[in-house]
């Protein structure tokens, strides 16, 4: 044992030593594969993950998140908090200080005016800024000197780390984008394809939806980084081919989001050229219960609206029984393997906000049957439960996706065992998530009894995510079906908690509130039936060092620390 730890120590020392002697550009080229190819390198014009992550190599904000979800400084000298005076005591103001001597990749200095410009760029009317939510609630941004940015909010902001924090809200160079305001934004192709940034790399060539060629930024703030002189970020193909290129052929050093089935994961890992890295964030695959009646016999405009409560899903006992019949571990084994774990929570992380709700993890078929009996749903002659002449018949919809279809089949089996008749429906993802108010098949319209998809929240603060379940966010014809309260859940006590959280700054208290709200939606009411906490799964070559998978920010968050293992 001693010998082993001594060896480990030696390895660690040599790794440190090689890192210490590292020199910018000493390790040649690194090949990264995104099977969904980046279309644009300006995250303000596209919020697609592929575009945001590719641009995060070039553009940075004041701060970012590390793999634990903690806020870490990037362009800022330090993280402003109430304790160090950076955030005002009444939470209406945050003061960011830029690191001294920062330069853009073109050699000009980074100033507070760039930050102010970025805010104006994203909030300009007709610009269609994809990250406008990051700049919501800001009253003004002042720049008392070239290093200082003071953001004043319209009201107390318990989570002030939104604007300029994370890959979705980087700082643009004012000089480069000054003619691209508002409606002009999409026309600035040259700028959108080759933004000047402060990140470890800069664009040398960009082929739309194909490949980004990057070179080390000569003005990067750490003179020893990045270790790679150039990077090729290639796109195209599918997750399986991407995994193969790292794990089996070794053509690529890193492949993003190689979400493949567990069987294939084992097979690819046997290739021996790389390893799968995974990490868990907040993405939860869930079944949403419709609390309103989707009956097609209802007139158009009244289906799935609060006018008509659901004939049986409005009964909490039925919802609970449906949740109890599901074996979540089997779902994980079939669909995700190491990239998933069973969960009962809507907010599975960060730890501070995650409830210790584990009651659903063991399947309880008998208990579920008993619950339905209690609720008055008796097994009829055809084996299907009924009450007052009404049969338990569920229309279960989701998007077209092989894992989701496996899940549908498994869940249908369990529910049939309960005596529930299940009809399955699959909708193409572009329609299901398209949000077109004219289509009857969007997940917002919810013309089904239950539906399954995955959702998460941006960054580490669940407040806006939990606020989606407010009564006034219920989608309906009056708001073109654009609300986020998919279940049509409405509870004044819940609304009060959301309000309370918006006015609470104390982290421990916020955590408590979030847990309470999570429990109200999950284990107390079973309105949201969480199934699987879905991690990210990417593939890294054995010769690529420094990879730390981060689910709170861009996956390429520490590309400046990557090096070649020799």
């Amino acid at each position: 044992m001693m010998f082993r730890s001594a060896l480990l120590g030696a390895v660690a020392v040599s790794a440190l030593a090689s890192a210490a002697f590292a020199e910018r550009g000493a390790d040649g080229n690194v090949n990264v594969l995104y099977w969904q190819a980046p279309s644009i390198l300006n995250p303000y014009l596209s919020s697609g993950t592929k575009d945001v992550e590719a641009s995060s190599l070039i553009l940075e904000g004041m701060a970012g998140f590390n793999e634990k979800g903690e806020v870490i400084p990037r362009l800022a000298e330090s993280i402003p908090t109430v304790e160090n005076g950076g955030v005002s005591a009444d939470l209406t103001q945050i003061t960011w200080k830029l690191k001294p001597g920062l330069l853009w990749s073109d050699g000009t200095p980074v100033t507070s005016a760039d930050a102010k410009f970025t805010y104006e760029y994203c909030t300009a009317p007709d610009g269609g800024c994809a990250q406008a939510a990051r700049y919501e609630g800001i009253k003004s941004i002042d720049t008392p000197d070239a290093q200082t940015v003071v953001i004043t909010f319209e009201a107390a902001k318990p989570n002030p780390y939104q604007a300029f924090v994370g890959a979705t809200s980087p700082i643009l160079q004012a000089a480069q984008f000054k003619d691209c305001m508002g409606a002009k934004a999409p026309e600035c192709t040259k700028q959108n394809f080759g933004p000047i940034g402060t990140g470890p790399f800069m664009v040398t060539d960009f082929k739309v939806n194909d490949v980004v060629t990057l070179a080390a930024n000569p003005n990067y703030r750490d003179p020893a980084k990045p270790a790679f002189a150039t990077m090729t970020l290639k796109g195209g193909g599918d997750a399986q081919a991407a995994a193969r290129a790292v794990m089996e052929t070794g053509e690529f050093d890193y492949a993003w989001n190689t979400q493949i089935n567990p069987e294939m994961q084992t097979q690819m890992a046997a290739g021996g050229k790389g390893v799968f890295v995974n990490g868990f964030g907040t993405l939860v695959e869930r079944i949403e219960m419709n609390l309103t009646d989707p009956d097609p016999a209802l007139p158009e405009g009244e289906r799935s609206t609060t006018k008509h409560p659901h004939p049986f899903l409005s009964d909490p006992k039925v919802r609970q029984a449906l949740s109890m019949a599901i074996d979540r571990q089997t779902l994980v084994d079939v669909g995700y393997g190491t990239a998933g774990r069973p969960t009962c929570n809507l907010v599975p992380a960060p730890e501070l906000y995650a409830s210790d709700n584990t009651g659903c993890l063991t399947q309880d078929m008998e208990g579920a049957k008993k619950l339905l009996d209690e609720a008055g749903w008796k097994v009829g002659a055809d084996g299907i439960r009924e009450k007052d002449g009404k049969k338990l018949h569920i229309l279960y919809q989701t998007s077209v996706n092989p894992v989701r279809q496996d899940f549908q089949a498994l869940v249908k089996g369990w529910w049939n065992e309960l005596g529930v008749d299940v009809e399955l429906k699959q909708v193409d993802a572009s329609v299901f998530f398209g949000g077109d108010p004219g289509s009857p098949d969007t997940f917002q319209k919810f013309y089904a009894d239950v539906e399954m998809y995955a959702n998460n929240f941006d960054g580490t603060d669940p407040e806006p995510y939990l606020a989606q379940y407010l009564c006034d966010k219920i989608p309906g014809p009056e708001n073109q079906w654009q609300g986020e309260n998919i279940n049509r859940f409405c509870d004044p006590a819940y609304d009060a908690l959301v309000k309370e959280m918006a006015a609470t700054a104390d982290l421990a208290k916020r955590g408590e509130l979030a847990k309470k709200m999570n429990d109200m939606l999950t284990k107390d009411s079973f309105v949201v039936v969480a199934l699987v906490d879905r991690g990210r799964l990417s593939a890294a070559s054995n010769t690529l060092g420094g990879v730390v998978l981060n689910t709170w920010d861009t996956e390429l968050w520490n590309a400046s620390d990557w090096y070649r293992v020799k």
Partner: protein
Amino acid sequence: MLTYTIRRLLLAIPTLLLISLVIFLLVDLAPGSPMSEIPLTVPPEVRLKMIKAMGADQPVFIRYFLWLKQFFIVEPSYIIDSWFGTNLGGDQQRILSWQSRAPVFDVIGQRLPQTLTVVGTAYFIGILIALPIGVYSAYRQYSWFDQMGTLFAMIGYSVPTFFTGVVLIIVFAVNLQWFPSIYDTTLKITDWSSFLKQVHQMVLPVTVLALFNAAEISRYTRSSMLENLGQDYARTARAKGMSERTVVLKHVLRNSMIPVVTVIALGLPTVFGGAIITEQVFKVNGIGAALIGAIHANDLPMVQTLAFIFAVLIVLFNLIADILYGILDPRIRYD
């Protein structure tokens, strides 16, 4: 012939306009939205603003006429500007892709070289393989060579390229590691070593496509040859004491090529259209891959423009095939 050509060209105008309208309506009426690939974390108000900025909220006919104007007036004037340095385009709005916000024609210009090199080479090699196989198979009908040729054609034609492509990748890229499985579009040919590298990475996709193309053309060549070999003029040529070589390669082959050349001309638009599946399998990222990506992302301007260009090419090559037919076969006169 000239009046015929002019008449056909004039007739093509209403045809193409109708095609463009049908494509536009089809793409527009198809379910789906450009917002479907955007994460659910983006709030609905922001989505609405993004759609507005794209112009996707305008009524369908306004968008159609805008597209017509952009396609037939703005884009050609930009092309003229880039050739002669004039400024006809001014700052008129070009056709912008919804995904990348870049002019669609710039993307096509970026993609076309890849497609033309890979798919074009494959088509050319396919023809080079197909013709000798077709000729010899017909000349020695029912011989073992003919049987093998038939088998080869059947396999090439009936096994889909997404299957052959993946099989070749697993055998030659994963197991033997002879060839790359991912095409490098950034490679610039500057010297012999980079040229060899280019050939090296083209081997697998070109093999897959050439096999597919050769299968079809070899069957046409064979049946056309068979038809002509039994003709009176072939017997006469033999009776005159000409060598087998002259009879087959000069007299029969020349006449057999008439339908084959038209088949080859009709197949040419597919070279520009890219081989959608093969491009996807090998990550060639040419026009075909661009089309499939645009369809997935509901990028209407891109899909519409690409589909329309394919329609133009098909109409054009149909005309070329007809004219070629008339030139090759003096018995055919259109006027």
